């Protein structure tokens, strides 16, 4: 059986969640982005004046920055941006119990497997439906521990000092064109605070969904992991299939304080007409660990490079990235690690699969600053090509300004080898079994890191469906 048929059977290609709910929104801005839109968003959210000013300043910066010429093809993006709605709010109030969630939204979640997760007492389900947090539950024990897991809007309302202390500090507005755009029109996302010393065994989980044609989504998440705390946050996205291009640009800021341990898992499965341009970054303090687990399966074009700024001695950063690019898709993903303190360590492992006319590009930065003595880093990129029309690239930037650094980068590109297939088939496997096993083996180092009982969608796509395809 040819390789591409196996992939078809693995179910990675078909977009299975392309169902559409009837739209029920209360308020939305005019298409396109201008000062009036920004003012309306701020007014709708009843924000303090400093936030309105923050947004307006960001809009100025956004307009002053040119469209990036690197990465993916953004040549027709401006036309898309002129047409999309920058703000839509489906409901006026937050829901606290599952019973209060409207039926059609529930229906959406059900198709995605959220209620199932709920049944397993996954607790803390913060879900984003369109641009607001519409459903939010927080486990009793977390409340007792002082954990805050709110929508970003409530974070601003209820914890103004904490919010203002950290908001926009990890990713400055002017970091890039799309962080500036997000800073101007952000809406929805999570605000998380984990007090010092608190350890959470069950992950915090948010579910994202864009449901309206031509609607941009600009989620903004701010997470503060207090000293010595330990937690895991999971974000996953799906979107219905639409014919016109859509747009998503998030900003995720994470502060990992001294000796804390934080993991952020993203499972991105936007429909194949989506631009997904995300900036996510963590500031990692002394002795702390930050782990990004980044899965990119959907979208038309994703440009996303999770980064760790290792600011304190002994900080550790870890990036695991997996990308699947099917027909017409371009996954331009990777990671950045900045070693700015002594004895910091880091690792990046990237695996990509390109099929059909898909293209996956690894783009990474590894920087060791002068004085970051004994920094150690290792980067590994493996690419698997399934068709002769598929394409893969590797663009690592390694900038070393410190003698005692020890860094390495390695990348390999391969197709599924005839020898590998032959070996497995000579052991009595059918060709498709052999192929499935090889593909599974290829992504296994990352797939095994996923919390199986939580990441419903990725499990389905990568683990369960693969196993189902065998035999």
């Amino acid at each position, binding site marked *: 059986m040819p390789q591409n048929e196996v992939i078809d059977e693995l179910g990675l290609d078909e977009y299975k969640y392309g169902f559409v709910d009837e739209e029920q929104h209360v308020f939305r801005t005019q298409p396109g982005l201008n000062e009036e839109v920004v003012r309306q968003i701020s007014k709708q959210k009843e924000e303090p004046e400093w936030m309105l000013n923050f947004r307006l300043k960001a809009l100025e910066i956004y307009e002053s920055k040119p469209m990036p010429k690197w990465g993916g093809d953004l040549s027709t993006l401006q036309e898309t941006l002129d047409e999309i709605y920058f703000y839509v709010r489906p409901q006026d109030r937050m829901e606290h119990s599952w019973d209060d969630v409207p039926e059609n939204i529930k229906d959406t979640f059900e198709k995605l497997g959220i209620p199932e997760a709920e049944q397993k007492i996954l607790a803390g389900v913060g879900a984003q439906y369109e641009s607001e947090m519409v459903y939010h539950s927080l486990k009793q024990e977390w409340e007792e521990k002082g954990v805050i897991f709110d929508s970003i809007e409530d974070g601003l309302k209820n914890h103004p000092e904490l919010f203002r202390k950290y908001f926009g500090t990890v990713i400055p507005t002017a970091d890039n064109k799309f962080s500036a755009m997000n800073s101007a029109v952000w809406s929805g996302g999570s605000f998380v605070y984990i007090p010092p010393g608190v350890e959470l065994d069950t992950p915090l989980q948010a579910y994202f969904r864009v449901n309206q044609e031509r609607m941009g989504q600009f989620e903004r998440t701010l997470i503060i992991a207090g000293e010595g705390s330990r937690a895991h946050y999971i974000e996953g996205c799906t979107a219905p299939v639409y014919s016109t291009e859509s747009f998503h640009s998030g900003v995720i800021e994470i502060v990992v304080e001294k000796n804390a341990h934080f993991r952020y898992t993203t499972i991105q499965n936007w429909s194949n007409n989506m631009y997904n341009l995300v900036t996510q970054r963590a500031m990692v303090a002394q002795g702390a660990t930050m782990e990004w687990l980044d899965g990119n399966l959907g979208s038309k074009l994703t440009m996303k490079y999770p980064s760790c700024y290792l600011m304190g001695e002994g900080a550790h950063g870890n990036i695991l990235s997996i990308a699947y690019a099917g027909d017409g898709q371009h996954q331009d993903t990777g990671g950045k690690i900045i070693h700015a303190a002594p004895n910091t360590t880091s690792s990046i492992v990237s695996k990509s699969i390109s099929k059909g006319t898909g293209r996956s590009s690894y783009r990474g930065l590894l920087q*060791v600053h*002068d004085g970051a003595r004994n920094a150690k880093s290792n980067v590994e990129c493996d690419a698997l090509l399934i068709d002769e029309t598929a394409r893969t690239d*590797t*663009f690592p930037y390694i900038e070393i300004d410190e003698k005692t650094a020890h860094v390495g*980068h390695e990348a390999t*590109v391969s197709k599924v080898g005839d020898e590998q297939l032959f070996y497995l088939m000579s052991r009595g496997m059918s060709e498709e079994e052999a192929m499935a096993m090889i593909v599974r083996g290829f992504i296994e180092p990352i797939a095994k890191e996923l919390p199986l009982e939580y990441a419903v969608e990725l499990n389905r796509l990568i683990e369960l469906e693969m196993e189902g395809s065998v035999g």
Partner: protein
Amino acid sequence: MSEKIIEGVTDALNAEAVTAASQGEPEWLATRRAEAWAVYEDTPMPTTRLEEWRYTDLEEKLDLAALALGSAPAIADDPAAYPAEVREAMDADHEASGHLVMVDGHVVHTDIDDSLAAKGVVLSSLKAAVETHPELVQKWLATEAVPATEGKFPALSAALWTDGIFLYVPRGVRLDLPVRVTRYYAEEGVATFSRALIVAETTSQVSYVDEILGAEMEKQSLVSTTVEVVTQDGAQVQYVAVQRMGKGAFYQSHQRTLAYRDSTLDTLNVNLGASVSRVDLNAQLLGPNANSDMLGLYFGDEDQHFDHNTSQDHVSPHANSDLLYKGALDGKSKAVFRGIIRVHPGAQQTDAYQTNRNLLLSEDAVADSLPNLEIAADDVKCSHGATVGQLSEEELFYLQSRGIPKQIAERLVVMGFLGEVLSRLPLGGVVEKVTRAIDEKLHGPALLD
């Protein structure tokens, strides 16, 4: 309407200079120069906003406006008149099939073994070859290998080159001994443009060693050299450039190799001298079973700046390329390596590898490494790797425990690290010369003696 700003046109580098350079030349060449100049005027000066120039800021490193065109007179073709460094370098050479000596842009000497000349081998100044072998020069000079349209510097070179090296090896002729070129640059405050054109016909074989020397300079000079190497079906060429110019020089070399079916085209670029050294090397694999080994070695000290920009273009299926660039950096020196393997659509069964390794010997040294891959075929074997690190404590400890003083042990480890490159292309004389030159840079008693 405001007038269009043309970048890089100076008191010395301008259309009049192009006309002057064309004096007495055949019309095709004058036309080619004029066309190249038009490209130059249309091409903006590279800035750090360009990916390929991200780490070398020309605005800071090169004062083009301050440069005159070289005007030093040609010296006599007499070893006694050669600069001492040239004599020393030539004395240290082993046997050769032929020699060419170039001083401040003038070819002052050429010789080639009589029996090879009888077989049609040509080693001459490029200027002379325009007269003696017009059809070959017209066919290959700044056409398929490095045309003016390649960029700002290739355009400038194609418009203003004054002389260069022409090496032609006819079908089936094999040279047992290398062809040796020794160049020397001492004139200060000038820009010199030279070219090397090497054509190896079907199943021929030749090794070419280009040693580029120079004096220390108070005023910056730009030494620009464009290298075009062609191996026809089944031919074998080894190209070696050893750059040991004096501080103050800006060495700029744009090289392209065209390897056709069943040919082998290996290159070694050694860069030890000059204040700024920028090498662009593109290897084109144009026929099945073409093979290119691409080796590089650099050793920096003080405030030297090295920028190696390599690319491996697998246009044809079933070809191989293997790149290894290694460097050690002392003082405040900085090295940039940017390499890319491009596997074009349909170039199945490609084997392409790329490795860059850097050794940082001082607190202030910097290494940037960008090993890139662009793969548009699925049945390929490609990998790349890059490392940056310091001397291994274990290796030093091992040597010291054997009674070797720390300073010597360090030098041995550095030589061992860099020696891997030289051992891959051990042309007679080159290994010894490079080893000695690195020894001198390590400021200590020579290990070889």
